[in-house]
């Protein structure tokens, strides 16, 4: 399984450090933070789908899967046909109006080549953004839940714990 950026909305404080970090790295922020009136904040970037519709419809091969599994992008091959933009269920690929080609998250391929985390993940002060392999992350989450169950038991909390 490839590595991806996972988003834990609960931790996010809408500080937009991820946006600014991405903007400083790529000139334009490819991750965006949406803020709702009730203070829910949702950072959103390319999901690097396992069965990526954008990649499937790209007629020139400008979109491709790189060695780490990211849906990366070769600007030299892009003809600006917008097929990917239409195919993406999340509206991720955006047109770069000046160069008439598409622009999207590539999980910071240059940073990854140097062994660094993607810029947004490097910065995110709350660790709402995590870079990793899905099974590892889920395993972690299971682990922390189970350890909490055990702790509660050890504290002798009166309420019995049911898993529904």
């Amino acid at each position, binding site marked *: 399984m490839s590595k991806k950026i996972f988003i834990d909305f609960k931790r996010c404080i809408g*500080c937009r450090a991820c946006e600014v970090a991405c903007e400083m790295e790529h000139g334009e922020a490819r991750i965006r933070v949406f803020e709702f009136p009730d203070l829910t904040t949702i950072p959103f970037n390319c999901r690097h789908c396992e069965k990526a519709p954008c990649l499937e419809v790209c007629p020139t091969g400008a979109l491709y899967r790189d060695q780490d599994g990211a849906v990366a992008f070769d600007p030299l091959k892009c003809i600006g046909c917008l097929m990917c933009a239409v195919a993406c269920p999340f509206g991720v690929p955006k047109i770069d109006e000046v160069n008439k080609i598409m622009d999207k998250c590539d999980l910071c391929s240059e940073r990854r080549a140097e062994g660094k985390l993607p810029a947004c993940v490097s910065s995110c002060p709350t660790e709402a953004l995590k870079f990793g392999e899905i099974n590892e992350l889920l395993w972690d989450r299971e682990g922390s839940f189970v350890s909490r169950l055990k702790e509660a038991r050890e504290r002798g909390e009166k309420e019995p714990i049911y898993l529904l």
Partner: protein
Amino acid sequence: MEELVPVVCPWCSVGCRLYIVSVNGHPRKIEWDYDHPNTPNKGKLCPKGVASYQFTISPDRLKKPLIKRNGKFEEVSWEEAIRYVAQKFKEIIEEHGPEALAFLGSERCSLEDNYVLQKLARALGTNNVEFAGRLCQSSNFVARSKVFGSPAQTNPFEDIVKSKVILVWGYNPAETNPVLFGQYFEKALDNGAKIIVVDPIKTKTAKFADIHLQPYPGTDLAVALAMLNYIIKNELYDRKFVEERTDNFEELAKSVEEYTPEWAEKVSEVPAGMIKRAAELLATGGNATIVLNEGVNQHANGTMTALAIANLIAITGNIGKEGVFSGVIPGAHCGLCAAVPGVNCAQLPGPVPLNEENAKKFSELWGFEVPRKPGLHYQAIFKAMAEGKMKGIFIMGQNPARSLANSSLIEEALEKAFVVVSDIFPTETTKFADVILPAASWYEKTGTVITQNRRVMRSFKAVKPPGEAKPDWEILVMLARELGVGEYFNYSSVDDILREINRAIPALKGATPERLNSNLEGCFYPCPDEKSETPRLFLNGFPTKTGRAQLAPVKWIQPGEVPDEEYPLWLTNFRQVGHFHTGTMSMRSKSLIKRWPEGFLMINPEDAKALGIRDGDRVRVETRRGSLVVRAMVTDRIRKGVVAMPWHWGVNFLTKDDAIDEFSKMPELKAVTCRVTKEVVE
């Protein structure tokens, strides 16, 4: 040549480390510092930290010294500018005495810059030396000094994670110190900690709250008194701690007898039941982190509120051990860089009080007589200026035209004196300057910082200053020489200055250039020798006369203004994550100004409806001092009866200068009354 230069973030006081990747002295990008896991940020940065070099390359930077002639600024050489300033200052001293001069230091400059500034003021014979800490932490400074013998933040941030209860008072760390919030507060919540937030606004921090109390601005004191009352009356306090480690419990208990939660409900409109729940959780929930900020400090009754909270910390036993935390976390990165070396009208480096004994000690150390008469505090300097008594001022990296209460009055005062400003940008204050000196910005000089967590660290020069800009300490040394006191300022590097500081301030003796240059994680102040540091304070007692915490009686003090028919709404103000203070730097950072473009007014839907205001309307906000026009944001994130604006856009035209805290000299910056009307566009 590409270099990776280690720096400390120039914005807030968390003290995040990062690298600047610089090519031949020009910043190319930042890189996160994941190499020093013991620094507070562990690599992480907020948006201001990420964008932190953008303003340094702004075309607006001041590059040459300027002298105002016939109302116009002309470029001059450094020699001419310094000669001119020195001559004017000498004239003022001869005609009116040194007390007609004032010096302002800065929480944005280094420890060394500030040390040299206060020393120059004192070498010239005046204690009129202040910085914006007066408008920031002074209330808490007074209160905690009284109760604990020291105002300092007590424990390393790691102890926040170990706390079971977090009380956040008048403070919004999720917005003002995001790294602190994400790396420590949220992790405490992961461990099951409960969080109590006291704030009239539903902030990003309040979103995480288990209990959110929303008092009217300026009535936090009532809530704190009621919590004391409830905890004492119901004997929920930490009996052992109170007996062994505090004095004056009876006096304190007596002083809060009348302040029941029901009384506080009437004053603050926080339901008594919620005050009780919060008090109970704080007293019985386990080890607590208790943090506060400007919502407590910036009031004419701020010291009393801070005092009540210090009492709460003491009687619940949440100090002087591991796993608790208390203190303030200012918005500016280096308040302690100015506070510790005594940039204060009544303190000398240490800081120690300005008294005969200390003045004598420093006279011996420095080789000149330290003036004994206390100087004027920040707001009083400008009052004296308005009255024509303060003839000259040297302003280092401060923007009093926007940062002090009642800006119109400050502008009038600045018109009347000989004003010298050293800064990195033209500001609202430089408009009134007679001489402007171009200073190097944070990444353009090497210097020492003391973060609010008392961590002393070095930040290194990563970028070449633009044009002829120079580090502030160099400017001050040139000026000292021209003023004929150069013999006391024989420094050729920041290390020379730091070595003198090592001798002048015992608690910094061990923070030597060698130690800080080779150990980027720095050390916790006090560090009395090169091997030691003090991550936790008060483990073996308090620096008070008896070694025990001095509980202090408290009482209700009315805020500076309360709503009436003419001005029926409370007005308060807050910070935004993307901006810093008066915006001198952050509004010149393109990634920040794009995302946080303008001021606005938060207003509750009920108030808005009554005034016929809809979301996005332009409204005029008016107080007895002035008015501003902004867009309305209609939202139930603010309680009814209160409106609020981010303070970065000129809010001090509305604040109140003539209600001043009697103990800390803090003006009423956070609770004034106003009326709001819809602006009709012709």
